[in-house]
């Protein structure tokens, strides 16, 4: 299948500052791609390049097979939703929705039909005559989505559309966006730095850092098989435990650090067993206690330092042989700081990264 958006060797600099470096991304028809990364890594910049709001320094952008590198934003077949909603304050909701269509010289009754359809999909019909100032945050964001919707475009670009909303509304609108995507089947590119949004919405996630893409893969793969230590650390909350040490493959593969040493034969190496200095990473939710220890080949005694009850589960900060580790327990677990307990994990669920390159091995 032909890809919906194709970004080839894209670079962008502001003067001497290189913000995007040689990006290559292929996005399939109807795919939901999430751009995830810490602040300032160039997500908005990339989105603005795709939208045509920034001139690229080098490279090409194709949308639906057409080279749009030099095309005007309105000629690219995209709709964009901004973090600050960017509704035209002096126009009514209806005026906001129809502005783009009027600019395109569309017939009046066709405009009416499209506005009515978008309003129906987003359930903002009662608001059509109001000005944006008289809307709540969630309603504003819906109108902003509607403005992209009426234009009947192939590609939707979202720049952190939910980050100005409170947690409850964010969760609601997240589901709505997912539903919208299932109904419309457009290609969507969605920028966020909320990992929950990324993991729940995306067909694929692109993790960005410093203008590079660190990993572009399905949420499942990003979570379970992060390509490097940055991705492993970035995804998951609380973040992964890391142990510093050396992999020894003279016999059965072993991980040795200054204070501990254990067998990692269950671990699937990328290119067969590889030795040398390494980071050993294990997610807090993959460390088990109690009865589940039966399935944990590697076990330690831990001393609990701090307990954070979070309702559905409990986060425990502990020390193993003087090395800090944190892990999740059931919300009903009775633990107190100072307790001694036995913890363990299965090396098959671990992630090991080369010490130098920080790449997965």
């Amino acid at each position: 299948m032909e890809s919906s958006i194709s970004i080839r060797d894209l670079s962008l600099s502001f003067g001497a500052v290189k913000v995007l470096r040689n990006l290559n991304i292929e996005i399939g028809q109807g795919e939901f791609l999430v751009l995830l990364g810490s602040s300032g890594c160039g997500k908005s910049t990339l989105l603005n390049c795709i939208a045509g709001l920034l001139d690229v320094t080098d490279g090409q952008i194709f949308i639906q097979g057409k080279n749009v590198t030099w095309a005007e934003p309105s000629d690219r077949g995209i709709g964009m939703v901004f973090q600050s909603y960017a509704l035209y304050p002096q126009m009514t909701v209806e005026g906001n929705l129809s502005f783009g269509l009027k600019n395109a010289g569309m017939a009046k009754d066709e405009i009416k039909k499209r506005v009515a359809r978008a309003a129906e999909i987003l359930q903002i019909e009662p608001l059509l005559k109001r000005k944006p100032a008289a809307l709540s945050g969630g309603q504003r964001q819906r109108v902003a989505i509607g403005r992209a919707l009426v234009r009947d475009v192939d590609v939707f670009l979202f720049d952190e559309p939910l980050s100005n909303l409170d947690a409850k509304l964010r969760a609601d609108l997240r589901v709505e966006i997912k539903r919208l995507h299932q109904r419309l089947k457009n290609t969507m590119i969605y920028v966020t730095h909320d990992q929950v949004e990324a993991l729940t919405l995306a067909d694929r996630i692109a993790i960005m850092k410093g203008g590079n893409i660190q990993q572009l893969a399905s949420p499942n793969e990003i979570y379970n098989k992060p390509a490097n230590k940055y991705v492993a650390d970035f995804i998951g909350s609380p973040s992964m435990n890391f142990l510093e040490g050396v992999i020894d493959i003279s016999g059965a593969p072993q991980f040795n650090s200054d204070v501990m040493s254990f067998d990692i034969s269950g671990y699937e190496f990328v290119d067969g067993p590889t030795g040398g200095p390494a980071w050993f990473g294990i997610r807090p939710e993959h460390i088990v206690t109690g009865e589940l220890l039966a399935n944990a080949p590697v076990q330690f005694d831990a001393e609990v330092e701090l307990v954070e009850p979070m309702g559905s589960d409990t986060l425990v900060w502990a020390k193993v042989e003087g090395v800090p580790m944190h892990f999740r327990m059931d919300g009903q677990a009775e633990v107190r700081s100072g307790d001694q307990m036995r913890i363990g994990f299965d090396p098959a669920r671990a992630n090991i990264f080369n010490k130098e390159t920080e790449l997965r091995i």
Partner: protein
Amino acid sequence: MADTAVHPAASSEPRGPKPRKKLSRNNIIIYGTLLVVAFYYLLPLYVMVVTSLKGMPEIRLGNIFSPPVEITFEPWVKAWSQACTGLNCDGLSRGFWNSIRITVPSVIVSIVIASVNGYALANWKFKGADAFFTILIFGAFIPYQVMLYPIVIMLREIGLYGTLWGLVIVHTIFGMPILTLLFRNYFTSLPEELFKAARVDGAGFWRIYFQIMLPMSLPIFVVAMILQVTGIWNDFLFGVVYTKPDLYPMTVQLNNIVNSVQGVKEYNVNMAATLLTGLVPLVIYFVSGKLFVRGIAAGAVKG
């Protein structure tokens, strides 16, 4: 009553708005200072108004602070329609209409050009925009006197020397740096995403200017208008240099009336003429003062 029984001291404990002492020391100092300053500024105005309403015999008595015994509007009529300004003796009225004919087009043309300039500089980062802006701002620091004569030559070359339109062009040019700066800063303070959204919606340069930017910019237009009206109305130098006597603006005519050397000094007429000349900026301030403050504040808060 049960409540008072439970909280017997409730009425004496702090509750609700904090009471403020009306005559605290701070208030006395603040209002005292304000009164003194207001008095200081209003006194000359009072003297002018009072004098302009007296007849000459009464003025000769020398009590400049005393109110007029017999109120007469004669000096005002004379200042408006009979006072001699050098060549002709038809009062300030001619200068008033000249000033109107100079100020209105100058204000409109300069604001139109400067607002489009500012908008282009703020939102459409065209090649050389920064250089253009720097040069423009630099222009604001060149003393007028340096440019007086070169502009005389330029206006003569294009055949506009000594005409109203020549003066309009001069006012437009000299208003450009500060007005462009004003508009550029205001448009920069508007959210950039609004501009981007409009571009995605297919609006071009002018459509964004008229349909998105203009409706959001009323306060800054009022600020610009006040700056320009008062600046141009009060201008003396350009008016005297670039026009001919029968096109002199009101300020120049006022000067000619007040400084005329023949005959007796008619203080009452001079005062009336001065008040008449200052009336237009004064009215503008009163009418749009509120919007002016709001516009300045909006610019200040958002940088």
